[in-house]
């Protein structure tokens, strides 16, 4: 009797672990199978510039371009802003306020992305429209700016943790040699925290690549690479916004559907690589998911 609960318990924990581990494979397999039509029928034409479902052209480059440019803009803004702010919270602000800062960041990180989308529509796109005198403020730049705000708490909180984990003895030794604070930060703290900072940026990169709702609402959803290519004040499309807008209206099993899933597969692989790189870069890998 006792032995059998012991055994059942063992089966239960083995089973649960198998399920947990299996989900990632299942998702990958499903995406791969369903993008197979696109890969075999469209083949290399997937890597072209024109997407037009009516004429059977499924070039994903506009979406790839949009995805990377939007992510690039967001990192360009959020990384320096976030790291400088984290330097303040960890190195300048007295530690008794740390709890308050952490709570505020958690609050900011907790705002659902659809609400960022709403704010983007109601404010950011209007501002961009007015400032740059455009017909529509729904542009690649708008999406990038909005996205930068969304990944900011991730960067701040992980960078703050990274600095916080460095023992005080390094700061004191450097201070004892007569260094100014910026020298201590630049030459001691940042090199020591580098793997963690790298992990933070990679994680934020992954989050930005996969963000859907907010981007979808403000990017304008045109499947084209802007002309000229650096004109980020024109509408664009990301993989996520394309999927979000179109997948529900695409008939299951069609080549169109398969081409959409192929983009999903690409996104999945990209984010997976970033996640794994980021985890490898973190020295203490446990507990970073929800803090």
């Amino acid at each position, binding site marked *: 009797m*006792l*032995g059998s*609960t*012991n055994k*059942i*318990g*063992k089966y*239960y*924990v*083995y*089973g*649960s*672990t198998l399920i*947990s*581990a299996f*989900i*990632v494979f299942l*998702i990958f397999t*499903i995406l791969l199978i*369903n993008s197979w039509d696109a890969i075999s029928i469209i083949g290399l034409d997937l890597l072209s510039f024109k997407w037009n479902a009516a004429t059977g052209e499924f070039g994903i480059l506009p979406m790839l371009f949009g995805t990377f440019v939007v992510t690039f803009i967001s990192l360009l803004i959020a990384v*320096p*802003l976030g790291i*400088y702010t984290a330097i*303040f919270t960890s190195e300048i602000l007295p530690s008794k306020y740390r709890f308050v800062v952490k709570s*505020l960041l958690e*609050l900011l990180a*907790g*705002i*659902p*992305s*659809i*609400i960022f*989308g709403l*704010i983007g*529509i*109601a404010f950011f796109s209007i501002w961009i429209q007015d400032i740059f005198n455009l017909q529509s403020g729904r542009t690649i730049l708008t999406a990038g700016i909005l996205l930068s705000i969304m990944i900011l708490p991730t960067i701040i909180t992980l960078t703050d943790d990274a600095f916080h984990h460095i023992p005080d003895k390094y700061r004191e030794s450097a201070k004892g040699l007569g260094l100014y*604070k*910026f*020298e201590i*930060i630049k030459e001691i703290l940042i090199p020591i925290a580098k793997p963690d900072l790298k992990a933070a940026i990679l*994680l934020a990169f992954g989050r930005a*690549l*996969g963000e*859907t*709702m907010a981007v979808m*609402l403000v990017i304008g959803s045109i499947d084209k690479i802007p002309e000229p290519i650096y004109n980020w004040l024109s509408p664009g499309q990301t993989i*996520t916004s394309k*999927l*979000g807008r179109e*997948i*529900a209206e695409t008939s299951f099993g069609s080549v169109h559907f398969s081409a*959409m*899933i192929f983009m999903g597969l690409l996104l*999945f692989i990209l*984010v997976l690589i*970033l996640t794994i790189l980021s*985890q490898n870069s973190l020295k203490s890998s*446990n507990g970073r*998911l*929800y803090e």
Partner: protein
Amino acid sequence: MNRKLQNNLFYASVGIAVFVCSLILLFLFGIIIWNGLPALSLDFLTNTSAEFGASGGIVYQIFGSILLIIFAALICLPIALGTAIYKSEYLKNDTVHKIINTLIYSLNGIPSVIFGIFGLIFFVNILNMGISWFVGSIILSMMILPTVTLSTYQSINSIPTVYRESSSALGLNKWQVIVQVLLPQGFSGAITGLLIGIARAIGETAPIMFIATAFSGVEFPSSFLEPVSTLPTHILALAQQATNPAALQNAWGASLVLVILVIIFSISALFIRLRHQTISKR
């Protein structure tokens, strides 16, 4: 350049960054509260929506959101507990541990829209379950699984070995030690993880918008396989009629309600974590 000047420049840049971040924070919460409060009323919370959301309330949406997360939590909890126990108590092989961790972190990193299309293909089409709230719950449970698993794992794993050894010495077998000694203490970690996971899941739109929700004509579901309406998908629908001021007003109202729900779950998680920390310190 003069070192002192450089130092001051550095402080100035830090000051500017902090100022910008504070502005952003103030702006976001200011906007959500300022625009949301006028829309809030008892009627708004208890009435059903009408005119495509432009008038009426959001009672079905609140109900739908809560229904989705409750079932997501119920589906997730046993699997997360089992995985956490396995990781902490059964798994001795370092390589396997690393692989499982990598898989869990990968699952956590998967973009939400990917969960959505996965659910659309696998549950809605292949398993032919149609667009239904239960599919939404399953997908959300997958999304929060890593958070709950790791939180549970940490609290079980941090229980000192003495507890295991002294209860084994009393003649308890492994499973009894787990159920009677480890789980009661590890449970707070599971609940904390669940609350954090739920706080995130309740605001998710992308994973459920193709598979679990419909916009109009939704009532209380009478079976597992019917769509519901939720707060985030409702906000999405209203945001897309941004030219209609009444719709936008209700979108802000629903946003405020959603943010309040998120905050309630986050604060409960924090509360449980803090309380448990003080208990285990004693």
